[in-house]
């Protein structure tokens, strides 16, 4: 506790006179004429695959086909299939072999291809990272211009964990050559529901 009060005391002694916060005019930041087109462009930049479907029925068909092909799939979207209620308590060992996960995104960001997902949607915090191929489902109305509008739409404190995901995991740590599939998914597909 001593260090706490010492640090706070030193700050109080050393900090400069109070400076004011800037006035933030987010309306003056970039707006895209076609948000969806910009979002798709941004997804291509982050090497994500894009599918555009009309309604959940098409996703259902895709899901059934993947199941029929024998894939190890975890679904978290009730519109697609039943959701396993054990999911939140599964460990890393339990989830290690997951090939595909379906998770719903709440907000999508046109400027950078990021999709906001919270603990409620993913059910298990590890799922979007440990699966090999991540499907993120986003409704077209939820695409916003930039991060400013995204943060105005979400409440980060409403869940214990939330993440913006932009494409599959990647690294360029070896000689700056881009390699897709570092520690997280090797592939990410964004399904936009029109």
């Amino acid at each position, binding site marked *: *506790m001593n*260090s706490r009060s*010492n*640090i706070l005391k*030193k*700050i*109080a002694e*050393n*900090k*400069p006179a*109070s*400076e*004011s*916060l*800037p006035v*933030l005019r*987010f309306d*003056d930041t*970039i707006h895209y004429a076609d948000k969806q087109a910009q979002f798709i462009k*941004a997804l291509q*930049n*982050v090497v994500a695959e894009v599918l555009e479907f009309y309604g959940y029925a098409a996703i259902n068909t895709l899901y059934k086909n993947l199941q029929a092909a024998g894939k190890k799939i975890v679904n978290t979207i009730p519109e697609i299939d039943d959701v396993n209620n054990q999911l939140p308590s599964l460990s*890393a*060992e339990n989830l*290690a072999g997951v090939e595909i996960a379906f998770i719903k995104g709440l907000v999508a*960001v046109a400027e*950078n291809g990021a999709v906001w997902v919270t603990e409620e949607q993913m059910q*298990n*915090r*590890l799922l979007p*990272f440990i699966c090999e191929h991540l499907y993120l489902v986003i409704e077209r109305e939820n695409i916003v211009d*930039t*991060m*400013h509008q995204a*943060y*105005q739409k979400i409440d*980060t*404190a409403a869940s214990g*964990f*939330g*993440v*913006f*995901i*932009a*494409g*599959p*995991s*990647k*690294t*360029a*740590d*070896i*000689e*700056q*050559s881009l*390699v897709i*599939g*570092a*520690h*997280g998914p090797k592939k990410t597909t964004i399904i936009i529901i029109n």
Partner: protein
Amino acid sequence: MGKPVHSILSKNFIADNDRTDWHDETLWMVRKKRDYASSQIPEWETLRQWASQIKAHTLSNLDHYLTVFEKNANANGIQVHWAANAAEHNEIIYGIIKQTGISSMVKSKSMLTEECHLNEYLQDKGLQVTDTDLGEWIIQLRKEHPSHIVLPAIHLKKKDVSDTFHQHIQTEKNNNDPKYLTTAARHHLRNIFIKSKLAITGVNFAIAETGGIVICTNEGNADMGVHGAAVHIACMGIEKIIPETLHLSIFLRLLARSATGQAITTYSSHFTSPRKGQQMHIVIVDNGRTRLLGNNNFRNSLKCIRCAACFNTCPVYRKTGGHSYHSIVAGPIGSILNPNTDIKANADLPFACTLCGSCSNVCPVKIDIHNQLWIWRQQISKEGYAGKTKSLSMKVMAYILSHPNVYRFSGNVFRMTLKYFPFIVKNKLNPWYRQREMPEAPKKSFRQWYIQKQKSEFKKQHIKKDS
């Protein structure tokens, strides 16, 4: 000269011409990606201004925001610890680990834990720490330190990585394919992730309003570590605080674009409370930062969000490599921060600079980096620490320039001289050096004239380069 200085160390680095050229050109490419990404955002300059002002506001109310953060974090079930220095930081973390009885753990990238030499400390206690960011893991296997704060292994070639992996995880000898090597690392580290029950991470932003933290990665290694672990320990400097969630939108738009030219990192993870049954700790560290806060000249350096744009643009950094800075944080910002912790040991660093001002031009939080380096030089000289470092710095610059091989790729020494050392073209003998040996000279006006001159030279050659 018992103590390593930048000028001597950089001679080692530039001894390998091909590698030096590659390092230089690669980082210049990253810098150009940053230019392109920022040019796509019409309000880029406004964002920089906002970010700088938000940081200035936060620093001027830092005690308030830290206590608000602590209160909210506690309410979320996070345990908050305070450390005055590196030693206390390490002791706190060891104390937490000891209570859990866990002996092996994963760690994601954190410059703070590097600054505190946490790995060495924990390993001395018999614990096993695995760095999981690919670049960090490579240098951990090689028992090296990061040479860049965002691209830790940028000083290595794929052949080096291949040799290291062959030795440690038995990859095929001479298979230098980055995809093959990355996949091998993925498999190896995945087993470690799955078994590991304790994760140590850094913090990119801590939000006072929510008591939560944000961690940005491309690889997903922080998340792979934390979500599988029973215990999460996050370490942050006091300057990581921002007031509100909405402010994140500004910093996240700036960070990745400035760092690598990406519009955003793959993962921007918001940890607000521990997972059910998980323990979460945050260690808030001073380690010289409050001293910096009290210094009018250098306070602004606490605004830094560690994007490394100033590294990538710096002609001296690109040419001499991170290890020449003999410090955990290299590059222009490191040359401001390191003399604050030990002025004597780091007296040479502010001289490893051409005062070209490019760093200040790219900095997303508008730190006046080159001005602060200039002020350090004056202070170091006044306090008598400059010694031979100034003349050595100048000698090495001359040495680099006198080796045409270094510029082989250009075929035009004069043009490249302009690119790297604009001051030499106009001034055969280094003017700022000479000038400060004559205290009665009109410092201020000369300095203004000089900096102005560098800026315009720099602009000219960059316009040329980019066109």
